[in-house]
């Protein structure tokens, strides 16, 4: 890969296949669709790409009421009506009432940007279909001003989805897809180290041990994820918890678990037997 390719940044660690997929999407100029468990860093990826490549980041947060049109432009008719009634403005120029949306903005800037369309599955079912042309050809027409906005530089489009809705096939065909796996222990260790480089190894080992034990419990409604682990590790450090208490007491459990029932399940299991300490948890871990 060439110099301008995307790679891990100081605060975001990327797996080889994700890195390759990002670079493929950039090289082909296709939108990159990212799925994965909540808390595996889907949104952070776009920030990391922008940081790594030195581009600005434009974020378009999708809500259940978002319409595709809003991403392109909004014609502020109410403002025009007001201005028309008071008569202190020249309202004949519609152009001043056309405001570009996030997608329009990313077309109109002078430097290439990264556009993050966050949680696209929250919107209406037809939403992705309404953007097909714009994401493919990267231009759109504003009938009110008879203008066509064309991307000066094709933005790098990153789209995240939590799989709440199926996305339409026609839309999927145009994307490059990646599913972010839940990191294994080795990867997780690296991730924590990029965030907390000075952390004690014993503490970290114990925390990871407890974390994967909790994730392995059957019947949890919401398994803790990377972002919760990072919070937890920080809580452990700030709270000055000694490493030998982590597996036996599971302090600050509320940081990891967000549901009452899960709490009870884990506490019951803790009383029944607790975290099985791995013989290799100190020293013999491969690779570091």
């Amino acid at each position: 890969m060439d110099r301008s390719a995307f790679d891990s940044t100081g605060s975001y660690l990327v797996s080889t296949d994700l890195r390759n997929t990002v670079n493929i999407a950039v090289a082909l100029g296709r939108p990159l669709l990212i799925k994965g468990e909540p808390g595996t860093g889907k949104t952070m990826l776009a920030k990391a790409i922008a940081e790594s490549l030195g581009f600005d980041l434009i974020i378009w947060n999708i809500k259940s009421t978002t319409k595709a049109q809003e991403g392109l432009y909004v014609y502020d008719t109410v403002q025009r009506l007001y201005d028309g009634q008071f008569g202190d403005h020249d309202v004949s120029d519609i152009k001043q009432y056309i405001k570009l949306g996030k997608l329009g903005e990313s077309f109109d800037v002078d430097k290439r940007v990264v556009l993050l369309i966050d949680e696209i599955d929250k919107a209406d079912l037809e939403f992705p279909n309404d953007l097909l042309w714009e994401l493919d050809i990267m231009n759109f027409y504003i009938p009110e001003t008879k203008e066509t906005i064309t991307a000066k530089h094709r933005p790098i489009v990153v789209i995240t989805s939590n799989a709440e809705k199926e996305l339409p096939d026609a839309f999927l065909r145009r994307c490059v897809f990646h599913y972010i796996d839940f990191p294994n222990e080795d990867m997780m260790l690296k991730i924590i180290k990029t965030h907390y480089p000075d952390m004690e190894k014993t503490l970290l080992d114990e925390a990871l041990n407890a974390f994967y034990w909790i994730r392995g419990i059957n019947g949890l409604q919401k398994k803790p994820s990377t972002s919760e682990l990072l919070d937890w590790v920080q809580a452990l450090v700030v709270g000055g918890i000694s490493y030998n208490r982590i597996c036996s007491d599971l302090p600050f459990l509320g940081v990891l678990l967000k549901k009452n029932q899960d709490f009870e399940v884990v506490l019951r299991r803790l009383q029944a037997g607790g975290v099985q300490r791995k013989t290799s948890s100190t020293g013999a871990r491969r690779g570091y």
Partner: protein
Amino acid sequence: MFTGLFYTLREEGVPVSLTEWMTLMEALHKGLSGASLNGFYYLARSLLVKSETYFDRFDLAFYRFFQDIETSPELAERVMKWLEKSLPPKQVDPNERKPFSPWDLEELRKALEERLNQQTEQHHGGGRWIGTGGTSPFGHSGYNPAGIRIGGESVNHSAVKVAAQRRYRDFRTDDTLTTRQFEVALRKLRELSYNEEGPKEELDLEGTIDATCKKAGNLELVWERPRKNIIKLVLLMDAGGSMQPYSRLCSQLFNAASKINHFKDTRYYFFHNCVYDRLYLDPYCMKKNSLSTTEVLNNLGRDYRLIIVGDASMSPGELMMPGGILSWDDYNEEPGIIWLQRLFSYFKFSVWLNPIPGKYWQAFYGSESISLIRRVFPMFELTVDGLEQAVKGLKAKI
């Protein structure tokens, strides 16, 4: 190139389109695969597969298509022993690299087999025998433009190995599922809420403002149809003993349905093996907590969507005979099948969800009663795929 893979993928049921295939060709043309099978695996997967639920099928297809390129495990094992003590990786000056000459896998494999027969001990750093850090085509950490790597570390796992691991098996949608997935599937019933008929009777404020402004201030009223979800759901669940193995699955469906509050109304009733003249209010199926089925039906409109969850497995007598009801104290005047037909014809839309996987419906203890019931109700498996099809069946007659 690799056109066979395209068809292998389609055979495995991965929905690959020509557009995506051409994108892959474009990417290969640009050299994005990094000229390795491993790079090709990830490149192809990211371009051809658009949902993690198809990763497993992709892996299967990839493995089927490329497996012959991989060293067989038995062969590898024998050679691994020689490779355990190894030299540091051989650094090759780029100028010294032999040009890549065309090679034939079959030939290479034959040569490897021959050499396996001749070689009796470890060799490291040479140019012919199987060993490490050399230029022989066989071994690891060495350099040969057309070699077979045996053991050792590559930057990544071999693509075929990765494919063979099938790490994404859990994501297959035809597998059984969690509450959340049930919710997502049930939520698809919401599409119905776009009331296509009905009068336009709600003032569309935004639309009115827009239209008025566009007319430069002349009031223009815009009306729209109210968008409420009109779906009403009635869930009948089998609480019989043979449902025990599926109780977790069924309670997940139950949780999902009761959690979703986007239905206009949801009702739950329970029955034991088959529906007769009484429906029960809880899974214990005691007479004191029961209602007459006819009464229930009279209270429910025909527009309720009916989902029956049950394994449909019982002795045919319970279904076909008057008095076939399982519990000792009761006697049913009419056979269960009549009640089922009555339910089916009463509700406009109804489906049967069966927790027993579809492939066992023909050959299982309940196969006879299953086939009898399938003549009445459209039956689906209690999986994501099955529930999605069932939801379709609840929206329009299939």
